């Protein structure tokens, strides 16, 4: 199943997204491991709360960063996150 505009994304069970003060970035935590996220990935994934569609996430980001088109970045990141098992998606 492809990630599409109407997919709803959430962080997969067993994984946790959180802000780490000491690292000054968002991280994904999982059994015995941690991945540091860059600022863009953090902004995207923190909006994937299991209620918003991908379109909602993009719209929301556009409000905060009106000068850049983030659509491609969002899809790329979500595909990669999905391949890593960090997120789950379902269709509305």
């Amino acid at each position, binding site marked *: 199943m492809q990630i599409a505009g109407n997919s709803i994304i959430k962080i997969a069970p*067993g994984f*946790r997204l959180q802000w*780490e003060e*000491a690292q000054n970035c968002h991280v994904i*935590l*999982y*059994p*015995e491991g*941690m991945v540091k996220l860059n600022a863009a990935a953090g902004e995207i994934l923190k909006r994937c709360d299991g209620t918003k569609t991908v379109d909602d996430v993009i719209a929301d980001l556009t409000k905060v960063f009106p000068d850049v088109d983030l659509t491609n970045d969002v899809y790329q990141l979500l595909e990669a996150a999905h391949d890593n098992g960090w997120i789950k998606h379902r269709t509305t």
Partner: protein
Amino acid sequence: MTMAGSNTEPPKPLWLLAELTYSCPLQCPYCSNPVDIAKYKQELTTDEWIRVFREARAMGAAQLGLSGGEPLVRQDLEILIAEARKLGFYTNLITSGVGMDEDRIKAFKKAGLDHIQVSFQASDEELNNFIAGTDAFEHKLEMARLVKKYDYPMVLCFVLHRQNQEQVAQILDLAAALEADYVELAATQYYGWAMLNRDALMPTREQVKKAEAVAHEYQKKMQGKMKIYYVVPDYYENRPKACMNGWGSVFLTISPDGTAVPCHAASTLPGLTFPNVKDHSIEYIWNDSEDFNKFRGYGWMKEPCKTCPEREKDFGGCRCQAYMLTGDARNADPVCSKSPHHGELLDKLTQLEAAAEKNEKPLVFRNMPNSRKLLKGVSLN
């Protein structure tokens, strides 16, 4: 002189390993706990542990391993999990499963536990229970099923040695049947009890090669379903492991009595000061104590490590192994083929392999009576 010199800040302790207790209903002869476990009587209290969690978290620790011994022996485990989770730790319970039941698994979930790692001793009941020194196999299966039922990510851990090294296929079939998310096929680490039993536990080169092939085959077969970690026992390598990712660089271990060590085997090293969390803050212990600075960076190194282009990759290997096998913790880990002691290690392995057939040394089981005997200087094998 040191690369990680005085003007760079010390690294952050990302991993806090809390050895809550050395009590354990199991008696694994491969246990890497120190052989003097009977000496550790004064366990930290609930409040002391919570203080340790708070201070380590403030310094940037994100992963918390709750281990032991058997952490389930601590009746305050639910409280400790809840506090740790509130602080923002990713909480990993590292357990044999003995002492767990459905009520406790439920309570842990409520407290916010993130992940449970269950260890097995073998893929069949007979060998499992022999190695564990107790009839635990059926119960472990039951607990593994409950871990899944309550939707935890499940890691199954099998410590490999000569007795179960040939079971890798059966082990992975069992793990798949239990729907493990991750399987760790961990080579025995020869510290503590495992070192005492090294002659009986060291697998042969042949066994290691076969196990590796099987593990790789399953890694392909199970891709996307179950992640399999297989690490070659380092005695059979030409380069050492990057032990603990460097001394005092990522890992902070607190023993049951509050002693802080850079790795769980470090208490065997001579000349350490053993700072205790009862006397010092985590910040002092990590940043300033002698122990945690002792092998930080590269300034402590001797040749061949000192001028080796690979030193940033493996940090000269394991200090404890260097000490145990060469008598000097500042030497290169003799697993390294550049070490002048590497030849001795190879000879030792050849000897062990030759003796493997005869298998005459009895296993010493890890328990308090044996620990007390060893403390008195009684030789058990």
